[in-house]
């Protein structure tokens, strides 16, 4: 470890500085409502830029913080998604929420870059604690997941005598196995179970989008780090466990999403099903880097866009409230419908390409049963998405969307289709992502 490595932690530092500035401004000047979110967006984008400028290089702190292609891709993805999530509620988000999400995002970047159990546990804690402060009801699950990760990491470090992730493949003792199980369980909870139930005074969709996208990406990124370390392990067939978890989460989350009546909750639970899809990609081990990266990038784009549009209907507590929106605001529904169909995996959208990519990987890894289950379960989540769309298309006198449609949402819808028609560039970018 040496001090010269510190400047390369700029993305994390920028985020923390942004959080500090937001807090200070809130305390000292009490400015307009949109100043804090704008600073948040700016610092998240700056972090993404810093991460891409820093690029790929030697690992920091003796391998504890990796600077490989996966770190690069996922840092940029998480920071950009955070910026987009903050942009959703640019006039409504409280400064405190902005600051907490920025801190949380710095934790997410640490997680996806971690090459060491201690760093991983630190990242999880930094990411999860602000969320626990933000939420009231999901707090126990959120903190519990972090607790499992920390305890599992300590167990593993004791069992192997080393805190490096690369030492995981020699785990053989009962203590080590238990630690590994706890670690994986905690990460799976972060990737899948943590549900967006924000109870901020004004519901803006920002924390929804943040939890549904950034937290899931970070959890899956951590799972991939651990998975890559375990790939050569002959002791534990972790792939089978991940396959079962993926199948269960896709099915259960799709069913639950189908039973929901609130559009926001449908999207929230369907995002868990999408995380399950990403977990399907993990089952292929080493080769899963490009697929998981592509899938998660597509997922982030579509989910943030859809949540941003739904956030414009704050009073639409039930599907019935959406009736008649299509007649009054056809463009709004066109953008929302495009994103929902893309999430449902219909061609020609980025969601379709992502789905095909994941399923091909699963079949290639001799998991055809998983591909069949995932394909059939995707019908359930597709129906859940389409319920929102059909509610909008129905006749009636529902709520009126707030404000005009934004560049972000139009851009998300256009990119979702364009990247499905011409997936080459994004596919080219992700080919290098390796853990």
């Amino acid at each position, binding site marked *: 470890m040496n001090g010269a490595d510190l400047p390369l932690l700029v993305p994390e530092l920028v985020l923390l500085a942004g959080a500090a500035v937001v807090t200070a401004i809130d305390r000292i000047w009490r400015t307009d409502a949109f100043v804090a979110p704008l600073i948040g967006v700016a610092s998240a984008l700056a972090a993404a830029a810093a991460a891409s400028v820093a690029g790929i290089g030697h690992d920091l702190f003796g391998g504890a913080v990796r600077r490989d292609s996966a770190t690069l891709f996922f840092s940029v993805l998480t920071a950009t998604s955070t910026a987009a999530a903050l942009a959703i509620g640019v006039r409504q988000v409280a400064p405190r929420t902005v600051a907490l999400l920025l801190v949380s995002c710095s934790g997410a970047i640490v997680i996806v870059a971690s090459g060491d159990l201690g760093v991983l546990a630190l990242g999880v804690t930094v990411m999860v604690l602000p969320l626990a402060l933000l939420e009231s009801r999901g707090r126990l699950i959120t903190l519990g997941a972090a607790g499992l990760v920390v305890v599992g990491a300590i167990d593993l470090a004791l069992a192997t005598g080393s805190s490096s992730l690369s030492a995981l493949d020699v785990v053989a003792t009962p203590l080590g196995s238990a630690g590994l199980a706890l670690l994986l369980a905690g990460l799976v909870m972060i990737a899948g179970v943590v549900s967006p139930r924000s109870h901020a005074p004004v519901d803006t969709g920002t924390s929804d989008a943040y939890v549904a996208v950034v937290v899931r990406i970070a959890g899956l990124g951590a799972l991939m780090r651990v998975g890559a370390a375990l790939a050569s392990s002959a002791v534990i067939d972790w792939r089978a466990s991940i396959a079962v978890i993926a199948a269960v989460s896709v099915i259960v989350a799709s069913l639950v999403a189908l039973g929901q009546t609130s559009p926001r909750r449908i999207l929230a639970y369907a995002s868990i099903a999408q995380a399950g899809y990403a977990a399907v990609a993990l089952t292929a081990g080493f080769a899963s880097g490009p697929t998981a990266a592509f899938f998660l990038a597509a997922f982030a784009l579509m989910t943030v866009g859809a949540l941003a549009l739904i956030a414009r209907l704050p009073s639409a507590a039930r599907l019935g409230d959406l009736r008649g929106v299509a007649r009054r605001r056809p463009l709004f529904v066109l953008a929302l419908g495009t994103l929902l169909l893309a999430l*449902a995996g*219909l061609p020609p959208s980025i969601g379709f390409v992502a789905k*095909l990519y994941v*399923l*091909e990987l699963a*079949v290639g890894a001799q998991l055809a049963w998983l*591909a069949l289950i995932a*394909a*059939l379960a995707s019908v359930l989540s597709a129906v859940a998405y389409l319920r929102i769309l059909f509610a909008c298309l129905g006749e009636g006198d529902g709520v009126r969307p707030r404000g005009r449609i934004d560049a972000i949402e139009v851009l998300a819808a256009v990119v979702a289709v364009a990247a499905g028609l011409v997936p080459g560039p994004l596919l080219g970018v992700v080919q290098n992502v390796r853990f």
Partner: protein
Amino acid sequence: MIATAVIALPLALAVVSLLPPLARRTRPLTVVAGLAVAVLGFTGPMLPVRASVHAPWAPILGLSYAVELDAFAAIFVAATGLVFAAVVASSDRIGHARAYHALLSVLLAALVGAFVARDLALFLLFWELALAIAALLISQWGGVGRSDAAVRVLVTALVGSALYIVVIVSLAVARGSLDSDVLRARPLPASAQLLPAVLLCAAFLVTLPVLPFQSWLIRAFVAGPREVALLLGAGLSSVALYAVMRLCVGLFPQGMSVAAPAFVALAAVGTLYGAVIASRQDDLRRLAAFVAFSTINLAAVGAFSGTEVGLRGATLAAISREILLTALVVAIACVARRSGAASLARAGGLATSSPRLATLTTVTVLALVGIPGSSAFAADYLVLAGAYERFPTAAAVVAIVIIASAIWAARTLRRAFHGPPLAHAGDLRWRETAIILPLLLLSLAIGVVPRSITDRVPADVLPALEAPR
């Protein structure tokens, strides 16, 4: 090139029909789109341009943009274009006509695209696009029960395409490409063909639809706009049948021959079931739906049987039913305009007030039932002969259909046109005649020269004389 043109043309006209200056001209424009597709489809294979395009789409995933308008696809494209033009020309006034007609044109482009697509993922793209647009049209422009119908159409489609996706994903992994020419050049070993053949067929069973899956079609006919119902019942069913022949039988012949008995049995019973239920319908839209269901099952018997005669018969049956079903649906619309509702309970004695309508409808219905000379007669005969080679029992069941069809035909004609006149309405206007009559003449012409259709079935679909390696 011509294949791309035939997809792009209706799309371009859809965009044009959205332009404000043409607000009152969208229906003629849409009819022109259908006719243009029909002409392009008819003449396409003879034009001196490159027939096929193979361009990369996402090579890492095995996707490519591969389209080809060969003689086999061309007849389906031409028939679909014709059906589209005829039914749109007969349509009533409708609200938000610009959006409606633009979406209809996109639906036509999607159906045509599914016929010319040579890449399995590209086929899925057009397939799902067609179903999504159809569901949207039903949900926005349909009648009572439209949202239920739209949801059913979509869910059925999604289940089918989920099975389809599993197959193409396995193929992409095994062969690295989804271009059907590449797949045909490197077929799967015979022992590995059964599962993909069954899954792929199951995907198309729900959208043909074969026996237990017909409810979405019935609801689409009852609740959907007439044009959309017909494009689903005639156009989309043809796509599914075409895919069964081109993909299931063409790519997995050995697997299909193992799985065929189950599918043939379902389709044979479905044929009979549709004809029997049709004879009990008072609602003419439901009648048309069950006739559509019965006839596509008959065609499916020929396709699933996998024999050369059966496949030729299935092709002829598909084309014949597209044309005749369109004539029937247009005739039913004319009856509905005169009696106030598409119901046998409200019609009656129309033969006295509208003799031309009665004549044309009678010819249509008899042609559908398969009187000698009509295209349906030739098709029924070929399907029966083809099925008899391998499945005599199924052929026997299908043969009973001729009797069952006679029952619905006689009952419908008697209730609608004979007996005491309930409605006093004018006869067919020239435009209505001009739509139905050419369709009937075409059917008779095909009935006289069925080889014009059956000879276009390509060798790569027909069973090979020697066993492939």
